[in-house]
């Protein structure tokens, strides 16, 4: 069955995104696998999220569009490097699966999860937010337009309400 992660992959295809960066992430896993299996996208696993911004800058210098997939906990690793998107003024798109958000059970996720929109805004990033599966495609498409046509540095927050609450198998 098709779900919103497949919608995101379609948007990536529509916008000619050629490089996708990620760290392992349960929320993004289906999308990451779709990218890995695709012949038109180069998928790069990172050791830390900030690498993704530097690589995205290099990709843009070389004429390719890219997207960084990360979790809210990874956002904190990127903040100084997010400055590069402003300094170079290059189009940048990141999709962030939120933790420490709607009904999170793990207290360790809250500080960075709750801080994520604030620190990204402080760095001048344009934020989109989506919490309903039926809105994902249009929102990611709008974000990609803001980035690659509008020249902005853009983040889409995929809210925990959309992703579902991780339970470690408990109900």
């Amino acid at each position: 069955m098709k779900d919103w992660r497949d919608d995101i992959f379609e948007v990536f295809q529509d916008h000619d995104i050629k490089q996708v960066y990620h760290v392992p992430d349960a929320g993004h896993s289906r999308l990451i696998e779709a990218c890995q299996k695709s012949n038109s996208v180069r998928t790069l696993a990172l050791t830390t999220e900030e690498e993704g911004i530097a690589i995205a800058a290099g990709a843009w210098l070389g004429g390719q569009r890219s997207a960084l997939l990360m979790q809210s906990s990874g956002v904190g690793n990127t903040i100084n490097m997010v400055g590069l998107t402003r300094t170079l003024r290059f189009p940048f798109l990141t999709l962030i699966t939120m933790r420490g958000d709607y009904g999170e059970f793990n207290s360790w996720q809250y500080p960075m999860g709750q801080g994520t929109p604030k620190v990204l805004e402080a760095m001048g990033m344009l934020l989109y937010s989506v919490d309903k599966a039926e809105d994902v495609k249009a929102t990611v498409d709008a974000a990609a337009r803001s980035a690659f046509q509008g020249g902005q540095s853009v983040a889409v927050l995929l809210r925990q309400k959309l992703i579902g609450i991780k339970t470690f198998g408990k109900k």
Partner: protein
Amino acid sequence: MSQATLQRRPLVKEILTGADDNLLVIGGLGSSNWDITNAGDRPLNMPLWGAMGAPVGMGLGLAIAQPTKRVLVITGDGDMLMSLGSLATVAAQSPDNLAICVLDNEKFGETGNQATHTSPRNNGPTDSGAGTDLALIARGCGIADCGTVTAKGDVAQLVKDLRMKKGPIFRLVKVMVEKLEFVMPPQDGAHLKDRFRQALLGRP
């Protein structure tokens, strides 16, 4: 005290001699930026004034986007120490057109020559490091072709390797601590990016 005898300015000049449209260069912030600019500012240089830890990643993204061009990253030991993981990410992708050259003077030059971890152990109260070997780290990350250059007699081969050898390659070059003139390229990042793309792609 470092025993290095190589001087970074003439070395970088030699590395970049005859640079043409097939050579795309990323220079790390601080000394490496001034070094590549001293060799001759050109649109296909991307000299960084900040973004410490970014050059290897930028080189990787660029090498993947432009597989027929040679991509050369020139940076320092302090910058490299800040992004060691990116060497593993390079190894995982293994772009055959990427060369990384780290100029190791065992110092954080821009902040007053404090010792980096590549400085030897037991090197006095303020200059001791850990003897960190960045070429060994690169090798351990999975970059098969790594080497260290310390002698003038090996520079010609170094230049050849950086410019032409099948990548990814990593070269650590031990260089002297020197007080050198700042030779600055344009500072505006958007301008540097636009002129790079204009020269490479024909559009900003």
